[in-house]
C-alpha cells in the first residue's frame, strides 16, 4: 500500500475541516506515515471470502415504534444554551456562500 504525500495531508485536512499549521503538516506527515507503515502489514493477511465485521452485537432489526417522546425534547433555552451566537432562536453563522457538495 502507498505511503502518503504532503499534498495528501493538505487534501485530507480540507476534507476533515481542519486547518493545520505548517509545522503540524510536517509533523503529521511523518507520524501518519509511520502509522500507515505499521498498518500496511494487513496486506499480508488473506481475506478472500471473508465477510467484513462492522459491529459485534449480532443484533438485527432493532427499532422503536413511531411515538413522540416529548420528555426528551429540549426546551428552547436549553437548545441555545451552548452558544451566544443566537438570533430569534436561530443559530447564527457567517453567511454560507458555497453550496452543499
Amino acid at each position, binding site marked *: *500500500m502507498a505511503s*502518503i504525500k504532503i499534498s*495528501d*495531508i493538505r487534501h*485530507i*485536512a480540507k*476534507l*476533515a*475541516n*481542519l*486547518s*493545520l499549521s505548517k509545522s*503540524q503538516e510536517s*509533523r*503529521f506527515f511523518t*507520524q*501518519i506515515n*509511520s*502509522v*500507515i507503515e*505499521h*498498518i500496511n*502489514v*494487513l*496486506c499480508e*493477511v488473506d*481475506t478472500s471470502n*471473508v*465477510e*467484513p*465485521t*462492522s*459491529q*459485534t*452485537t*449480532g*443484533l438485527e432489526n*432493532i427499532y*422503536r415504534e413511531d411515538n413522540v417522546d416529548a420528555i*426528551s425534547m*429540549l426546551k428552547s433555552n*436549553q*437548545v441555545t*444554551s*451552548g*452558544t451566544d*451566537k443566537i438570533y430569534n432562536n436561530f*443559530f447564527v*453563522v457567517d453567511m454560507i456562500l458555497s453550496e452543499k457538495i
Partner: protein
Amino acid sequence: MTMDIPSTINETRYGLLSKKYKVVDLINAYLAKIARYDGEINSFITVCEENAYKGAKKADALISELGEKAFQDYPLLGCVVAHKDVFITEGIRTTAASKVLDSYVPCYSATAVKRLDDAGAICIGKLNCDAWAHGSSGENSQFGATKNPWNLEYVPGGSSSGSGAALAADFCLLSTGTDTCGSVRLPSNYCGVVGLKPTYGAISRYGVIAMASSLDTVGPMAKTVEDVEMMFKVLSGPDAKDATIASVKYQSKSSSFKIGIPKEFFGEGLDDEVRNNLDSVIQIYKKLGVDFVDVSLPSTKYAISVYYVIQPAEVSSNLARYDGIRYGNSRDAFGDEAKRRIMLGTYVLSSGYYDAYYLKAMKVRTLIRKEVSVVFEKVDAVIAPVAPTPPFKIGAKANDPLQMYLTDIYAATANLSGIPSIAIPSGFTKNGLPLGFQLMGPRFSESLLFDLGKKYHKEISYKPSVAKL
C-alpha cells in the same frame, strides 16, 4: 476530623447503618482528601461539591427514615462515584478533557449516569482522562497529565487515567471509565484497582462521548471485584436510547473451570516482572483446581493494526459534530492527538483507500473474532497480561505516537471481538508499582469472570490497598 474512608460498598453500608458516620461525613472526608492531594495528582477536572452535598442530604434522610430497607431500594446508596469526563452530566460541565468543550454544560445525562444516580450513588466530580479518550497514559489531557498515586513520576495509564488514579488515592469509592482499546483495563492495572471492559452491547453508551462507536464500552471501576459486579448489575441491560444493547441473562458456572493461555500474549516484549506475576496467578488458580490449556490466537499480531484503521476512521466521524456552532469551541481547539486521529481516519475512509484500509481491517476483524470464538469452544476464559510493561515514566513515550499505540497491544483483541475482559490487581513490582492481569471470556460471560476474579482474591485474602500520599 479525619476518618477512615471505606474501601468497599459493603463497608460503606455497614458504616452508615451502624451510624459510624453519615453520608455527609463521607462527602466531607472525600472532598478534604481531594482538596489536599489532587492538586498534584490531577485526577479531577471538575469537583461538584454542591451536587455531592445535595445527594448526601437526600441519602441521609432516606437512611434515617427507612434504615436497612433504603439499601434494598437503592443498592448504591451513599456510595461516592466519579465519572470519567466523557460521561454527559446534566448541569455539570463535561469536557472530554478537551479545550473544544472547556465550558460545555450539558442539558441531559448519560444513561449510565442516571442509572447510578437512581441506585443512590452520589456524583462527586468529573475525572481527567486523555482528551476524547485518545491515549494510554493520561498525558494527553488538555487539562494536564494525571499522575499515578503510587508514584507521581509514573503514568496512571489511560485513557481513563483519573478513574484509576482517583480510586487508588481514595478520592471516591467507585468510578466509571470507557474502554475502546484498554482504556479501563490499563489504568485499573497501573493503579491497582479492578476494572471491567464489558461485552459490547451490555451497558448503554447513550450519553457517553463517542470515540470509536463499534469498539467503545462503558466500564465500571472499583477496588474489589464484588463492587465492580454490583456496578455492572446497576449499569447493564437494555436502554430505549441505545439500539446496540442486548437483553441477556448473565450466568456463571459452579465448577471445573478451564482457562486458556494464549501464547501470542506471552511472547517477546513482555516484561519479566509482569510475566512472573502472571505465573504466580496461574499457580494460585491451579491450586484452586482450575485447569489451564495452551491456546492460540494467531491473528493477535494484526489486532493493533486493525484497531488503528477502524478506530481513527470512527473517530474522524464522531468528532465531525464539533464545529463550534451549537456548543463548544471551533475545530482549531482540538489538540494534536485528536487532529492526528481525525486525519488518519479521514485518510483510510477516503475515496480510493477505503477498500485497502477500512474494508480490509473489517475483514481481518472477522478473522480475529472467529479465532476468539474457536478458543472459547475449548475454554471458559483466557488469561493475559493487560500491558507489556508495568507503569512507565511520564514523558517516556510522549513523542512517539506509534510506541504509545503499542501499549494497547494486549487490549485490542477484546474490543475488536466485543468480548468482556476484567482487569484484576495481583501485587506490586519491586518498585512498588501495581501489577495485574486480565481475564477474557466469551460474550456476555461477565458473571463467570466475576466469579473467577473473586476466587483468586479470596484465595490470596486480597485487601484493597490505598496509595500513601
